[in-house]
């Protein structure tokens, strides 16, 4: 699965030192909170679309609001997402 950030898969930060397997690949995250947010986001995308895997996830924005474009084969889902302080999704609006 491709992501658009070279740093933390969720926020692009290069601070921190968390490595975790997500979607079958070892990925870098700046902190456990970003890892939790990323996992929650992917799980929700799969739940909404029924996709069993993802080809790419592109994230734009920061804590005040993000948009995410996820794709699988020819399918694309664009959503506005936001998390609470514990990393749970509090907004997930396809647009």
């Amino acid at each position, binding site marked *: 699965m491709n992501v658009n950030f070279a740093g933390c898969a969720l*926020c692009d*930060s290069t601070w921190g030192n*968390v490595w975790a397997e997500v979607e079958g690949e070892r990925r870098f995250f*700046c902190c456990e*909170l970003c890892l939790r947010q990323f996992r929650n986001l992917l799980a929700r995308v799969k739940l909404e679309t029924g996709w069993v895997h993802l080809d790419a996830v592109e994230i734009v924005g920061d804590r005040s*609001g993000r948009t995410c474009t996820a794709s699988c084969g020819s399918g694309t889902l664009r959503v506005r997402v936001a998390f609470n*302080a514990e990393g749970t999704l509090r907004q997930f609006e396809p647009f």
Partner: protein
Amino acid sequence: MTKCPVCLRESEPSGFASLAKHLEAQADGSDSDHVRWLNQNVSRTKLGAPELTERLERFFDLKGAPLSEWIKRRFIARFYAEPAHPFVRALQHPSRATLLGYVVEHQHFLRQWVRSCAYIMARTDRPDVVLYELDNLNTEYGGTGATPAHYELLLRMGESLGVSREEILATAPLPATRAGIDGWNRIASTEPWPAALGAMHCLELIAHRDLVREGASSHYFDPGILQGTEISDAAKAFLREGYEADMGHAGQALALVERYAAELGVVPDVQAAVLRSIDLFDDYLIARLERGATFER
């Protein structure tokens, strides 16, 4: 004496090189709060010790301006840059759900507010600070004669939107509100009292009407909603009260902070406590939205 703006630990030895070393070590350990602070205030890109030290020096430098200006600048950068904080955006023309989220979480905030101000009163020896806090507590919590307190107006706003006082008072705070309460309690009870004063009363800037003149991208809410029928009368009464009360309060408090921080030599403590308070408040405002979502139909 430099102090970490996240865990409020004093740097040993004092100085920005020590603070940089501490932040680096915390970031290497992937501590979420420290990484978040670096991401939001310094850079998303990991920096080497010399550059981080230099950036921190610049960040905390008052640049010849009064401490109150530095506090306002930090506050505006977090809550009123473009785009404004998500809660501020939602409050421009608030839905019933947004206002109820405000009521349910803020009830807990105000009860901690009383405790924090009481700590400041207990720990200061300056009569002007005591008098300021007394006045503030009456406005926020006690009420004076015919004027209901902000706390009472908040509960009335909730009732006007169809949720009983009993239900509001019986609802436990969300985790971020709880974390805020714990953090503010710690600051108020253990930090030098001018730092507690700064950490608490900078938060009143959120409703400060003059902030727009100082660079805020919007008001706390669109003042137009105080006219017309967009929100209930009780909601208007609550928002109007804050709009008017907080204007004097925050300015007056920051003047006291500035004076006593200099007199007691605790400017770095004030800066660190204010920054911590801003992070806690940011998460707490999100909790209001999160609570509000539970009232959406």
